[in-house]
């Protein structure tokens, strides 16, 4: 009897079922994946645990950059300096004022955010290349300040040591335990970043990036929103830097450098600007490649006699450079774009081509 039903009726409910099933399936897959990550210390090698820790913290810094550069279109070369800022603030709050790490973490993030906002002020007047140059200033001024100012507090070039975080008697003194912190913060930052992307704030960012004249005519105050983007980017950097300081148990004025700011930008480009999965894909890929390069360094050094001594250092930038070139040429929209194509194809299965 089904043949007598008007065409299209069943299609609708079928499509509906498929959509809810897909959503349920996706949530289950995500929950399973997160469970696997949280359980990693039980079955993963120490080096894998350390890698996931590092990747999680780096992703957070790239997510911040994505808000500023990806959504709002403001290029920044200062992200590493705001990471150091967050690291110093968190360590000082814990060691000098006896704060708990978990209280110091958000305060350090906001502190770094305010410093980032200050260095975003030139965006009132300059754009593009000139703005990139002025964010570069942060990369020189902040480390200089930390090395030279208040030596009895900041301890000059030596920097500061950090105790392990502690909560309700649990001491997070090994990578396997620290993982719970870095993953949890990452989940929070990912949810927040994803929602910013879809909110009124995110729309304003995109409007400024794509059509700044039209954005202004519609009542968006570009300066206000650019500063908010600088603030948020530096809050994310501050979180990342504070986590790193307590993971490494140390921070100094060179813990993160201009080199890292550039790599973070490269990760964002490889992942895809202005998409919320971009930072995750880009950071994991590039960090993975960089660490493979470090491991491959000693293995190939016999074949590179002249560079043998510094083979490890020599190969990392080489790999980074090559990967970046490949992305710029073959996948300028980043892995996030590829990811959405794959998702679309999967949705159309079995009729995809």
């Amino acid at each position: 009897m089904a043949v007598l039903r008007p065409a299209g009726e069943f299609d609708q409910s079928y499509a509906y079922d498929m959509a809810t099933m897909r959503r349920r399936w996706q949530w289950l897959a995500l929950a399973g994946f997160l469970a696997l990550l949280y359980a990693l210390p039980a079955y993963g090698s120490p080096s894998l645990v350390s890698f996931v820790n590092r990747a999680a913290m780096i992703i957070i810094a790239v997510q911040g950059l994505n808000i500023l550069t990806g959504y709002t279109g403001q290029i920044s070369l200062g992200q590493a300096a705001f990471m150091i800022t967050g690291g110093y603030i968190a360590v000082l709050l814990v060691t000098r004022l006896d704060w708990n790490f978990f209280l110091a973490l958000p305060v350090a993030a906001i502190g770094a955010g305010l410093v980032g906002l200050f260095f975003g002020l030139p965006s009132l007047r300059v754009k593009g290349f000139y703005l990139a140059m002025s964010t570069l200033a942060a990369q020189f001024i902040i480390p200089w300040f930390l090395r030279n100012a208040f030596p009895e507090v900041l301890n000059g070039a030596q920097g500061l040591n950090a105790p392990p975080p502690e909560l309700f008697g649990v001491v997070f003194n090994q990578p396997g335990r620290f993982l719970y912190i870095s993953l949890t913060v990452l989940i929070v930052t990912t949810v927040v970043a994803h929602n910013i992307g879809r909110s009124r704030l995110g729309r304003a960012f995109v409007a400024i990036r794509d059509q700044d004249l039209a954005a202004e005519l519609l009542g968006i105050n570009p300066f206000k929103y650019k500063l908010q983007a600088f603030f948020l980017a530096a809050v994310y950097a501050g979180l990342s830097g504070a986590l790193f300081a307590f993971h490494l148990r140390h921070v100094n004025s060179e813990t993160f450098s201009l080199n890292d700011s550039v790599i973070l930008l490269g990760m964002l480009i490889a992942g895809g600007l202005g998409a919320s999965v971009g930072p995750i894909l880009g950071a994991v890929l590039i960090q993975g490649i960089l660490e493979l390069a470090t491991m491959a360094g000693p293995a190939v050094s016999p074949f590179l006699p002249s560079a043998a001594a510094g083979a490890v250092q020599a190969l990392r930038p080489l790999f980074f450079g090559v990967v970046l070139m490949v992305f710029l040429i073959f996948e300028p929209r980043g892995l996030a774009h590829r990811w959405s194509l794959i998702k679309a194809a999967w949705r159309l299965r079995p009729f995809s081509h």
Partner: protein
Amino acid sequence: MLLHIDSIQTYYGSIQALKGISFTVDQGEIVTLIGANGAGKTTTLHTLSGILHPRHGSIFFEGQPIHTMPPHAVVRLGIAHSPEGRRVFGRLTVAENLDMGAFVRRDKAAIKQDLDRVYTLFPRLKERQKQLAGTLSGGEQQMLAMGRALMASPRLLLLDEPSMGLAPILVDLIFETILEINKQGVTVLLVEQNALMALSIASRAYVLETGSIILSGTGKELLNNPDVMKAYLGME
């Protein structure tokens, strides 16, 4: 008097683009500003909406001086501006673009009403709600730019060359819609190079030449003015 512009002079650096322009727009009118390329039409609209600020002179909207205000404050007073070249958000959908037009508003129910009004004015936009604005035709993008400006619920609508680059049949449609928008109570200041069309729907008109107003009158008067015919309508 809804809008009163009093001898404004606007500069780009040391280059003077407006050399002391004065005119008025009354409630409910369609006023048009015509002139050749580079006459200063866009500069005038940008000065009105606060993108540029006059070095001398003043602008009053409903008696309130607005010539030092930034654009985001001017929109909130009820002046919406559909810019030259449309400038729609290409990576957002039609519906999202219209939503952006209401950026400064919080009155959800009234926004919904205005959305319905825009979709009634431009049924084509309704059909294409979910399409990315960057993939619309030039005419559709123009409709979207006008619809987006209307979503701010303006009392004064500034239109910068809405007919630019459109086929004649679409030009007719756009001008009919401008009349319809005006009938619904929105005052319109229209900048055009298509003088014939602009003059035929305008209650009053001003002719701009290299930064100065050289002629003014009702639309009909200027349509019958031999100098205007020769200079702007290409007729002997």
